[in-house]
């Protein structure tokens, strides 16, 4: 039981120390900083450029579709790298034939390509 309390006691000390440090830093900041309010300082920071519109601006839905397609092919790449690594080490003596592995991956890419064809036929790739 003592082990339990000493472990959690360490954690509690860490939490207390964290809260104390935060309070100390914020307090020091408040004491030493200069206070010069200006309306410019309240605007949204957008890479140093003046912010355009409000945070509730509606985005064009096409951005969403493109983001979607990007994610799909990004994930495909994640699968391709380990596959390529394994395929390189296969030969006739391995338990699974390299041809089979190659065909398997092309079926996977083919199914993804069908998704692209679907997107193209549904005209989501056109930027009108």
């Amino acid at each position, binding site marked *: 039981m003592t082990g339990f309390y000493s472990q959690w006691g360490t954690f509690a000390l860490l939490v207390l120390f964290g809260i104390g440090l935060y309070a100390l830093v914020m307090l020091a900041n408040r004491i030493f900083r200069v206070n010069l309010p200006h309306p410019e300082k309240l605007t949204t920071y957008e890479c140093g450029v003046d912010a355009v519109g409000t945070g509730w601006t509606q985005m064009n839905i096409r951005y969403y579709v493109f983001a979607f397609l990007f994610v799909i092919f990004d994930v495909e790449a994640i699968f391709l790298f380990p596959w390529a690594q394994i395929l390189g080490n296969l030969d006739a003596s391995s*338990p*699974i034939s390299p041809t089979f592995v190659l065909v398997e991956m092309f079926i996977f890419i083919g*199914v993804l390509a*069908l998704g692209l*064809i*679907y997107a193209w*036929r*549904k005209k989501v790739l056109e930027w009108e």
Partner: protein
Amino acid sequence: MAIDFGAIAPELVLTATAILVLMVDLVLTDQAKQLANPLSAIGALVALGFTLPLWGDERSTFGGSFVVNDYAVVFKVVFLVSLLAILGISWRYFAESRFFQGEYYFLLLVSFLGMLIMPSARDLLLLFIALETVSLPGFVMAGLRKRDLYSSEAAIKFFLIGVLSVALMLFGISMMYGFTGTTSLSGIAQALGQWGASPPPLLLASLLLIIVGFGFKISAVPFHFWAPDTYAGSPIPVAAMLAVASKTAGFAGLIAVTFIAFEPFAGVWAPALGVLAILTMTLGNLVAMQQRDMVRLLAWSSVAQAGYMLIPFGLAVTGNAEVNEAAVQATIFYIAAYAIPNIGAFGVVVAINRRTGYRSIEDFAGLGGRHPFMAVAMTTFLLSLGGAPPTVGLWAKFAIVQAGAESGTVLAYVLLFFLIVNSVIAFYYYLKVVWVMWMREGREGMAPVTPGVNLSLVTAALVFGTVLLFVLPGLIADTTVSTDLVAGL
């Protein structure tokens, strides 16, 4: 590591059909798009043709994570027959309204692909992937009535609660892997067996988290909140699919997880699921009594039915193969006996609702005079859901009582007591609909019922099945599908 292509042939056929349907939808235009329906039906029939010869086989592939035995085959047959029936009630409904037909049939097939994998999966990861494959298309299908706020509500509720439950389940799976060092179900059973009588609480928590994930899928109280709103807002054939096929898939996974992997701890989960069973059937029935909308009535009735199906889980005992076999057998029989009339009941609702938009119980008044066939069919289905002769529902309830008597524990008799009380409550609202259909006059100037050929054929086949299984319950009951499963295969 050769892959047994014969064992996964039904899944491969369904995958190919799904891709074909999506491509066909891109080529065809307007009216021709409804050809996606017969195409899907042909795919389902071919998959069924590949499934039936697997009966009696013991096959295992992908390193033992994918198993085909009688247990899996029975579920696959139930799924594929449900798919055919749902395709039958979908055709006109989707062709006449302006739905995205190609996408609907594609999503439906993909969802059923996940279901086919579910009873074969013997690995937590494969079970998880199967569950996701069932659910994800379901989220989209629930929202297919675009610009209808209720449909959007149905989709968003289903999505949020589905994602939450999957997150809980994944958390449980990760902890279970931490404790046992394996994701294979039989491996977990071995590792759990070594913990003996004093498992760490966190292990039990992870076990229950995994069960909760399935609890959402089968809409057991208190994880049922999404079900009535989602069923009521979705297109009605989709509601039928969610109420029957998706729930059956949840049970297929739950049976595999509890009776194989967590069997050593049956003393923990069996009472928990028994209490859930009591809560689920009681709350489901009491709320169903209040409903005026037919789809909501069926939704709450399906919540209550999930409670009946959970009863055998409450009977499980560690190491007692006889009781466990009887319990699994009773659940499987009940699921099959529930699927047939419930799809049928939704089919009749589609027949009444299509073109007219009727969906309240009042709209069924005088159906006996207006369309006697549909009224007879609906009466049969509701009697079967209640458990009255001459329908299969009677034997389904009987199977549960039999399993309870086999177990003979105090909890078993408490569960059976609640089963009987709830059956009486359920008859009140099932018979109320029957009474409205036959005894009440319909309103003046009600639109005629035009079910169409497909829907009538499917309904007739389901009526036939409901009565046939009453005469020959041995078609399901005499098989020994649960033996392999309880033996851990």
